[in-house]
């Protein structure tokens, strides 16, 4: 997300870097770039203006000051402003003292209310609550059936009454009390913010259940209209937070920032995939560091946590560090990795990735030949790739539908990777004593959350000193700055 923005900012740095002094026209040029970048990310025009004005103030201040590197100051102004605009605390749910805690879901058609109702229910369940869902969308054909199906998948009961949405809500709430459910999620029909009749209906539903939280579901791909919609719903319902849906796409940009800025309510949750557990609390600071091209390690790790089992990961990491990582392990890790989402998506969350890598169009299909080659090897070959010579090579190439050169390259690269890992393992040594280091690692990981802010802007990845050998066209490999718990 905001890739454009990061790239443009980089461009700006190169342009103004080294200038002893910024003129006002330099600033104007820079501001134009920033404005375009924000607009292309679908940040609302009004918000763009206010952000740009503030950045400009800072930047002009920088032209007057005799600071060493005014260019850096401009970039810093941009960073600060974005972090501020998006910033704030993660929304914490306060449960009603007299259960149930009632959550009302509202939004336009197709924003993802029904799916996110179920995702939210699953989330509450994971917090140890007993949610129930009420299907008050009687408008869309089979919407209630969709909710019921989802309810079955996560084992959460669903109440609905086909007669009337308001009646459904009232009766559903009664039912929840009777059953002792402590969280109730009310799914409502999608409606346009200018449809007065439907807006009145949702106001009545809200009045009937008196929700503790009203969440507005907004599609992350929404353009300039996001703000208008949010304002209209906020005026009718008093929104407590926003759920950004479809955050796993490549656009999810400006809507997030704009809505927060305009209605002053935080983004509470983000939906990051099609599966019901691909749903997480929104952490503004993480998102800010992602915008700034500093990656989002914490989210990455949380995703990894879901995709890899603990034992598996620990075993792999140990092997890796000790240089005993075989092609078989590699294959296994690669397959687990795929569960986490597209490589491109993961890439965007990695901190400190050089532009060459970020811009490389990574297609998950390109992994297939690698998989094919490895699966065409015998176990012995996977364990000791060194034995792969002449005829074996030819056999593997034929078996995987690749060429001998491909096989060669893979084996060679793997060898180099192994060497590198071993070297890193020596340098890093993140805890040989398994349980003993737990506390320390924990502390480090926590610190990682704040780390991006502390990073120097002109952060030079190469300086953090680990390089991947034999890589054409890549100027050394960056370290992993935001890496939680990595002893430094």
């Amino acid at each position, binding site marked *: 997300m905001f890739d454009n923005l990061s790239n443009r900012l980089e461009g700006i740095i190169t342009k103004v870097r080294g200038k002893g002094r910024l003129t006002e026209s330099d600033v104007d040029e820079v501001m134009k770039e920033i404005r375009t970048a924000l607009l292309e*990310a679908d940040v609302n025009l009004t918000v763009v203006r206010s952000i740009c004005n503030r950045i400009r103030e800072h930047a002009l201040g920088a032209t007057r000051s005799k600071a060493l590197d005014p260019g850096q100051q401009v970039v810093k102004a941009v960073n600060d402003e974005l972090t501020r605009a998006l910033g704030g605390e993660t929304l914490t749910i306060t449960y009603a003292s007299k259960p149930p805690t009632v959550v009302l879901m509202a939004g336009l*058609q*197709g*924003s*993802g209310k029904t799916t996110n109702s179920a995702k939210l229910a699953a989330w509450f369940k994971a917090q140890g609550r007993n949610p129930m869902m009420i299907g008050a969308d009687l*408008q*869309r*054909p089979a919407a209630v*059936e*969709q909710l019921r*199906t989802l*309810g*079955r998948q996560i084992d959460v009961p669903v109440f609905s*009454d086909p007669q009337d949405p308001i009646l459904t809500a009232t009766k559903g709430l009664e*039912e929840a009390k009777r059953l002792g459910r402590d969280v109730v999620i009310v799914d409502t029909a999608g409606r*346009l*913010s*200018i449809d007065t009749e439907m807006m009145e209906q949702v106001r009545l539903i809200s009045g009937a259940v008196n929700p503790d939280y009203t969440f507005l579901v907004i*599609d992350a*791909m*929404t*353009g*300039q*209209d996001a703000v*208008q919609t949010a304002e*209209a719903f906020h005026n009718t319902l008093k929104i407590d937070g926003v759920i950004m849906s479809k955050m796993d796409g490549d656009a999810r940009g400006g809507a997030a920032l704009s809505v927060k800025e305009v209605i002053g309510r935080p983004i509470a949750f983000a939906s990051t995939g099609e599966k019901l557990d691909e749903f997480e609390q929104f952490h503004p600071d993480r998102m800010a560091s992602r915008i700034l091209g500093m990656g989002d390690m914490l989210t*990455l*790790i949380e995703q*990894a*946590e*879901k995709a*890899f089992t*603990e034992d*598996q990961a620990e075993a792999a*990491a140990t092997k890796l560090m000790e240089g005993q990582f075989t092609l078989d392990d590699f294959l296994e*890790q*690669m397959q687990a*990795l795929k569960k986490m989402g*597209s*490589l*491109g998506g993961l*890439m965007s969350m*990695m901190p400190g990735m050089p532009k060459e890598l970020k811009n490389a169009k*990574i*297609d998950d*299909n390109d992994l297939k030949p690698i998989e094919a080659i490895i699966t065409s090897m015998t176990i012995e070959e996977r364990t000791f790739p060194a034995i792969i010579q002449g005829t074996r090579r030819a056999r593997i190439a034929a078996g995987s539908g690749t060429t001998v050169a*491909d096989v060669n390259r893979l084996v060679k690269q*793997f060898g180099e*990777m192994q060497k590198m890992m071993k070297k890193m393992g020596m340098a890093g040594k*993140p*805890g040989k004593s398994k349980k003993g*280091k*737990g506390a320390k*690692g924990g502390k*480090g*990981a926590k610190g990682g959350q704040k780390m991006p802010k502390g990073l120097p802007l002109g952060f030079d990845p190469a300086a953090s000193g680990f390089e991947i050998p*034999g*890589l*054409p066209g890549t100027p050394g490999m960056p370290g992993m700055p935001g890496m939680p718990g*990595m002893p430094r």
Partner: protein
Amino acid sequence: MGIEFFFLILAVFVVAFGIGVVLLNRRKSVGQPAPGRPTPPPARPPVAQSEGDTLVAEPEVDSEVDSAVEEEPPAGTLRERLAKARSTFAGAIAGVLGRSAITDESFDDLEEALLRADVGVAIADELLSGLRVKVANKEITEPSDLLDALQAEMTKRLVGSDRSLNFEPFEPGNPNVWMFVGVNGVGKTTTIGKLAKQQVDSGRSVLLAAGDTFRAAAAEQLAAWAERSDVDIVRGADGADPSSVIFDGVEKAAANKVELVMADTAGRLHTKSNLMDELGKVRRVAEKGAGTVTETLLVIDATTGQNGLTQAREFGEVTNVTGVVLTKLDGSAKGGIVFAIETELAIPVKLVGIGETIGDLIDFDPEEFVSALFER
């Protein structure tokens, strides 16, 4: 792209994850399980009447549906309907006309209007720079002429394409197939429902193929529409291979000499390469039998921002999109992204959705679309 790239990436990932996961897991108190994620939700037969885990008897799908749609729409033109929410350009128009001459502010006003309509920076710049030249050359001097010129310029960008839905008069037994693709929640199923009814009313025989086997109850939703237009529907189990469902639909249509198969597909983000591949396969398999895909319609939500262009590009790559359906244009969003889609990708907008009733899916008329923006 060399293999080494992936090695590099994977290496970094594996390391990062390995270490990260281990550390994080250690930090977490013991007993916090981090289970491997199970593969997709269990496929269940979509039969509705399982009451064991629901609290109230299954509502009749129809009863919900009909009440919402019974009353026939107040037939309105695109322009009338859009005029409801025309505030976007109104301010700019007032601003431009309120000045006795064309100034920089006039252009600022227009730029703002264009950007707020999601036209995008690039197209807005193009549109306005042409006008700036004309103003500088004194070809345009009056503020009202400036508005007219912009309107003409915008209309010009949209006209010229063939916007009719392509239907070939094949021999009986060789159905036309219209495929509907798009990201999640744009209104594919609803569009098919409405269009099916219209096609039936205009005398064509239609069959619906419920190719969205992923979203819960998507087939039920389509079935409700099928019933409303009294057409056949072919559906598979939840989680079934969409290609085979659509293939079956085409086969059945061929056997029954149905002329037109409308194939629904699951919404998918264009960034998910596996799902996009699946869609490519659906497109290919749809033509394996007696059918020919004569339309692939990309459904786009009018609220979509600049990402709409990427969507059109990516879907176009895997399915050869032949037209766009712009839905939810009756809201406050303007759908300006279609200018970029038509200009850069030359994919014509064929239909627009302006309401919830069947009659609210109408042909796209570029002149009306643009003039609705300029409604004074």
